[in-house]
């Protein structure tokens, strides 16, 4: 017993130092040298100022921007406190939230999308994401928003669609995952378009 206790105490100290401090320190050093941008959180800078991360959604409410999916974090799109919404499939609050989100989309998009009905809204547009900071929307939801953004920005719809396609992450290696439109990068591309 005493013998096990002594061995354990030594092993705990040794393993904590090796696996808990030395290893992460070396690994972080390597990461900072080899992949510094990714290792720091894939931050995007404009004129030297950090405007976000390509891996985190941020709030967009203005009509000239593409909007991300709903978020359950507090406040929404809090990349410092990620969370699921945790509403079960039969929870009445889920029905209420989906309906509220769908009506808001119809109200916002209909002026630019005559004849838009609830059946045209893709499901990712009205459901919270897993992380609360899903940086992407489906190509279908981007397509739905494209006429509004084009009209507000006085850009040809074709140009907006081109930008959507430029900022769509296809499947990794061509077949892993699902196509996803990065909202922040798309909006940054649109802002650049306006200023040029």
């Amino acid at each position, binding site marked *: 017993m005493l013998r096990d206790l002594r061995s354990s105490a030594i092993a*705990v100290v040794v393993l*904590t130092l090796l696996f808990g401090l030395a290893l992460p320190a070396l690994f972080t050093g390597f990461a900072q040298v*080899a992949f510094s941008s990714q290792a*720091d959180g894939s931050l995007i800078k404009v004129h030297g100022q950090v405007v976000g991360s390509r891996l*985190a959604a*941020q709030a967009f409410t203005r009509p000239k921007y593409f909007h991300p999916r709903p978020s359950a974090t507090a406040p929404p799109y809090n*990349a410092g406190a990620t969370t699921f919404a945790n509403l079960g*499939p039969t929870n*009445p609050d889920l029905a209420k939230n989906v309906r509220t989100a769908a009506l808001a989309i119809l109200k916002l998009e209909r002026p630019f999308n005559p004849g838009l009905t609830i059946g045209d809204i893709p499901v990712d547009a009205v459901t919270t994401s897993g992380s609360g900071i899903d940086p992407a929307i489906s190509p279908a939801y981007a397509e739905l928003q494209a006429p509004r953004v084009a009209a507000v920005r006085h850009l040809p719809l074709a140009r907006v669609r081109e930008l959507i396609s430029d900022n769509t992450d296809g499947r*990794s290696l061509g077949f892993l995952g699902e196509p996803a439109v990065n909202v922040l990068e798309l909006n940054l591309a649109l802002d650049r378009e306006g200023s040029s």
Partner: protein
Amino acid sequence: MTGQGIAQILVYAVVLIALSYPLGLYMARVYAPAFRVRWLSGVEGGFYRLVRTEQNREQDWKSYSKSVLVFSIVFFGVLYAIQRLQGHLFLNPDHLQGVPSHIALNTTASFVTNTNWQYYGGEYTMSYLSQMAGLAVQQFVSAGVGMAVLVAVIRGFSRRSSQELGNFWVDLYRSLTYILLPLSLVLGVILISQGVPQTFAGHATAHTLEGASQTIARGPVALMIAIKQLGTNGGGFYNANSAVPFENPNGLTNFLEVISILLIPAAQVFMFGKMVLARRHAWMVFSAMFVVFAVALAIALPSEQHGSQTLRASGVNITQGHGQSGGNMADKEVRFGIANTALWATATTEASSGSVNGGHDALTAYGGAVPLVNMFFGEVIFGGVGSGLYGMFFYILIAVFIAGLMVGRTPEYLGKKIEARQIKYAAVGALFVPTMVLIMAAVSVVTKSGLESIFNPGAHGFTEALYAYTSQANNNGSAFAGYGATSFSATFGTVALIFGRFAPLLAALALAGSLAGKKVAPVSAGTFRTDGPTFVVLLVGVIILTAGLMIFPALTLGPIVEGLSH
């Protein structure tokens, strides 16, 4: 479900087998006494001297168990202390305070038992020191302990007329340095290259395009995520786990992370086959696991693609195609879609990983029943690193025993006679945890303090409670995450975590101890063959009859009621 989704899953299965088979053969070599890496043997010898052991000093099952228990208890104390004191320690750039006692207690039990249930909220509760030198160390070590115990148990089958099962410190050291460490480094580097952070800098603050301020949590993430996936741990750096893009940025990382969940558990089946010189039998065990896996996925995937009642009634478009993956996208991420989230949910609950890439509370009724039943089987369909296969041995012995009863003959397994004592250990190992789960879930839904944790109304709320205790007792760690932490649920859960880990672990070691001393009898015409498809059918049948029937009544109160309601 389109060909695209199914193709991704088929590739998954092929890659899993292609990687786990050679890894299993390598692992069998690592644990052999003669194994030596010349340029590292000085370090290895140094470690053995430090912990005052010698490579060839072997232990019987009682001594081995004692080392496992004492080691786990000492680590328990250290991990608890780190969390409580983190506010006063270094590597805390965001100035987080000490973790509250009931949360720290549950989290400590959770990580020492290889569960990684998260009552805490990763990025906003734990300092970098707690994450890295506390939790991530346990992710290596608790996995290493499970792997060591499995090897000891296998030696019980492979040795004859012996009392010894190996040396715990040697098995632990080799699991850590020759298996978990190199795999984690490889996976970690790939993850960083794809965008998983690895930094000591505190959170970043962004000034968003619309002029708001956004906090972006980061830290030493990549290495922790690698071992979290490979060691069937599951406790993420971030609260929303591998759904968060910083843990899992794209389709490639998702694929590698979900492969990593099952990689070592699957490899251990092949390792076992090599160690006991019964490769055909190992393939049959693998096949039984694979069959259950495939059936589970075949239920979960269409359920999620079909969507929930609420989403179907809402009128929005949930049909796959035309630029969306459709289905039940609630609490799921666009870049993974339905196929990859359903695959992950199935894999993570068959291994005792519990990491998630989408919220399980929001799964459809039947889509959520699959993870629940997977866990209730005792985490033996591949299962946790080490614990999965030693858990499976309980079912294998029961299967062999039943076959023996049918032909009226003392059953044998791998040449060893299986007698009353072995069957008692196997029965305890197989039945203790499910019995405990049902009792604890029942208590938690009839007591006032238990009910406070429930978040969703109706049948789903009951499923939350059932899921919580099934997950903790089987050391999975995934959650219907609406289920809240109260001091009652955290303390009660701690009991589930500890007994769920150590009762089967001790039963397995006792079983191995009782087998190691036996002689090997020659195979005769009356021996039930464990290297053919009949065995696969019998084994799957036994799992369904024992654990499946135990949970069925509870399923009717939870997911089945919910699935039938509108």
